């Protein structure tokens, strides 16, 4: 029993090395949604699909996001890397290995949308950013482009 009390803290210390990498992982899931749906999502000018769509992105990079649809104003934002609080776990538990490993894997960061810039630049008044624990959900209500003229309306056949 005495040994158990000695081993447990040591085991805990070893397990908690690289705190952020273990807890958060080196990638983060970003979900995109839009109103109307089926808008095309581009990350760093690479097309990743049509909304709703999600992508696991490496945490150690910054990304330019664009959501485009014909007839609507495009939406763009920057996903910035912010400090991941789990990195502090290395300091609290004295994990020297984690101090090195977490920056290498990128786990010391978390991706976060630059909300203010996005709103000012694009006049999209209905942009919702939701962070659910670690994942980020970006939902955009695209505004109609005034340069487009409505010439007709398709009607459902009887």
């Amino acid at each position, binding site marked *: 029993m005495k040994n158990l009390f000695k081993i447990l803290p040591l085991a805990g210390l070893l397990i908690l090395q690289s705190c952020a990498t273990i807890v958060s992982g080196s990638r983060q899931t970003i979900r995109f949604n839009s109103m109307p749906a089926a808008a095309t999502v581009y*990350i*760093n*000018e690479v097309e*990743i699909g049509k909304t709703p769509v999600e992508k696991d992105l490496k945490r*150690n*990079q910054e990304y330019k996001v664009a959501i485009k649809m014909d007839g609507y104003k495009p939406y763009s934002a920057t996903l910035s890397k912010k*400090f991941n609080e789990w990195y502090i776990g290395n300091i609290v538990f004295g994990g020297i290995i984690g*101090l090195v490993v977490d920056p*290498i894997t*990128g786990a010391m960061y978390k991706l976060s949308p630059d909300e203010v810039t996005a709103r000012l630049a694009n006049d999209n008044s209905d942009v919702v950013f939701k962070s659910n624990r670690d994942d980020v959900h970006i939902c955009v209500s695209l505004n109609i482009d005034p340069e487009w003229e409505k010439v007709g309306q398709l009607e459902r056949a009887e």
Partner: protein
Amino acid sequence: MERLVVLLIIVVAGCSPKIKSNLTNAQPALSANDEVAFLDLKHEVPQKVVKIGSLKFQDSGFSTDCSFNSILNKARLEARKNGANIVKVVEKKEPDLWSSCYRLNIDLYKFEGSVSSLPQYKLTLD
């Protein structure tokens, strides 16, 4: 505590690769909508281009954001800023025992005409 702060600053600030630029013939900047072509080692530079300058991406020693695609993305930003629409890789060192980074020498060119028809490397997400 001071050492910890210094370590954090080094880790946070030093994650990007070191960029050396030699831009001898900068042109008016391109917009974000202007297409930029990536030419890898095997792709040839078309005729009638204007050389804008060159970029050298090196490992700063603390670089972690230095994959091939990430560096090309950074090069594209520099290219647009200086009016170039072709990013040509002229020398490529892959990650090895000494560095976990790609180290690239890149030339920037301005091509009059559409670059979308050129044989080129397609950028992907890591």
